[in-house]
């Protein structure tokens, strides 16, 4: 393992433990440098600094693999000191609960004992696009950039669970990480979610130690995280220390109430939905994004305008991709590649010609493997503003 590179002397948001972070941030603000940077990141839109939440600008989603410095961050607590020091001293991963053998692994153990795999995997926050809901929903006001596709290297979670011997009574795999609660109370847990056993046993669900060929960056869970692609990214626990195999649906922080849950039935916008009518979000819906050109582009020359972007879905591949330049009256098919591996996003490319100069909207619509398409409008209002997979639209002025 390569050590995490040394810290710059400049204070970065989230680059200090919780207790010390207060004064560091205060000093930064007092010096007029507030809102500056998140450690290890550049050019993100920062939504909050405690905890760090920051999203990728659309143009930076254009590369096949979202780079480590551009990938969105959704933290619930502070950054563990280990993530910054890069030290593995005292670190282990414990597997317990509904297993035949409680096991404890060092990172070396995991790497030596199980087959190492690399996969390009999409992680998307369940609240990506929340800012478009009307009436507004509380939470991070993500626009379009709480999604990314990086190349992760690790072992299959199912191999590790298999070594521990999952009992017949197991139904859920819960995680606990090292991230400290922002209250500073060591007994508080900022987030502890998990996945149904079936998702944990999926071939693509990994315990990863590398992201794009580098050790997991501090904000992405050094030294080890779950990557359960297709599900809300909050199930892909970071800074892992424990996997608790449970005989019931996990009830840790951010599993209950309204967190990462939507109503079991369609509700009118603004409805006060009873808590017992909320259900946990499973696979994310089909979605796509235009990464080139950027919205607001002025297209000169009269020739066709090349369009490209990415399409993905939470439970299988995307089968078709279309563009419309006339508000959905007609649709142009795009070229759509096969995914590099399950849960990798897929490149689409198309071109649009404009016969008459003027203002246009381009709409992008993905269709998944079951024929489900992205909706034109922001779909299914829900109390916390999850699962907005409305078509991406960009404005084009044809000159």
């Amino acid at each position, binding site marked *: 393992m390569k050590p995490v590179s040394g810290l710059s002397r400049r204070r970065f948001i989230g680059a200090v433990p919780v207790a010390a972070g207060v*004064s560091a941030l*205060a000093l930064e603000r007092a010096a007029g440098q507030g809102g500056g940077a998140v450690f290890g990141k550049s050019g993100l839109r920062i939504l909050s600094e*405690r*905890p760090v939440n920051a999203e990728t600008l659309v143009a930076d989603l254009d590369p096949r693999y979202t780079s480590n410095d551009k990938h969105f961050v959704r933290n619930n607590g502070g950054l563990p000191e280990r993530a910054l020091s890069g030290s593995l001293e005292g670190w282990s991963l414990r597997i317990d609960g509904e297993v035949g053998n409680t096991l404890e692994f060092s990172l070396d153990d995991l790497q030596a004992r199980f087959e190492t795999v690399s996969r390009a995997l999409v992680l998307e926050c369940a609240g990506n696009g929340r800012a478009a809901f*009307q009436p507004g929903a509380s939470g991070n006001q993500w626009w379009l950039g709480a999604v990314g596709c990086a190349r992760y290297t690790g072992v299959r979670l199912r191999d590790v669970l298999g070594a521990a011997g999952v009992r017949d009574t197991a139904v859920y795999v819960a995680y606990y990480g090292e991230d400290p609660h922002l209250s500073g109370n060591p007994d508080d847990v900022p987030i502890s979610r998990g996945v149904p056993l079936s998702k944990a046993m999926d071939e693509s669900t990994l315990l990863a130690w590398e992201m794009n060929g580098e050790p997991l960056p501090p904000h992405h869970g050094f030294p080890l995280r779950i990557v359960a692609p297709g599900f809300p990214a909050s199930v892909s626990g970071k800074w892992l220390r424990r996997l608790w195999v449970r005989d019931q649906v996990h009830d840790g922080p951010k599993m209950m109430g309204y967190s990462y849950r939507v109503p079991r039935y369609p509700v009118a916008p603004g409805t*006060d939905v009873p808590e017992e009518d909320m259900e946990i979000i499973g696979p994310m819906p089909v979605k796509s994004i235009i990464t080139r050109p950027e919205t607001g582009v002025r297209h000169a020359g009269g020739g066709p305008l090349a369009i490209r972007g990415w399409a993905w879905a939470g439970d299988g591949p995307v089968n078709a991709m279309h563009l419309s330049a006339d508000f959905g009256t007609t649709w142009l098919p795009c070229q759509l590649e096969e995914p590099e591996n399950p849960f990798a996003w897929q490149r689409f490319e198309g071109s649009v010609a404009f016969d008459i100069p003027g203002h246009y909207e381009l709409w992008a619509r993905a269709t998944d493997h079951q024929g489900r398409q992205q909706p034109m409008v922001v779909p299914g209002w829900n109390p916390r503003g999850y699962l907005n997979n409305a078509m991406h639209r960009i404005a084009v002025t044809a000159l």
Partner: protein
Amino acid sequence: MKRLLLAGAIALLPVAAFANPEERGLPALAAVQESDGQALIDENCLYCHDDSYIRALHLPREEWEGVLDMMIGMGMPPLDPEVQEQILDYLEEEHGPRESSPSPGAGASADAETEDLPWAFPRYRPNPLFWRER
């Protein structure tokens, strides 16, 4: 109300409330006029996150109180009761419930709030009839 009390993803964490700057040996932050609600928001809320968290919501006072409770659940130290009342006064005044549902072209404030969204560049709002019929 319940959904706001129980919801937990906003990060309104008033770092400045941990202790006053002088006690921590830090330079004083910008002076706050006690009667200035926006300044109190700046000092206590925007220290940790941007104002999109607030602009997205239009709530009655008791639900804003629920949001503050939610923040405490996430690690926010409780506010001085007087400061909390002033903040709630401000939120109630500036971010209280809208009188009507947002309607395309009808509400300048709604447009202003979405002006900086990437999807605001397209100027057509989907399904305007839905809102007009309500």
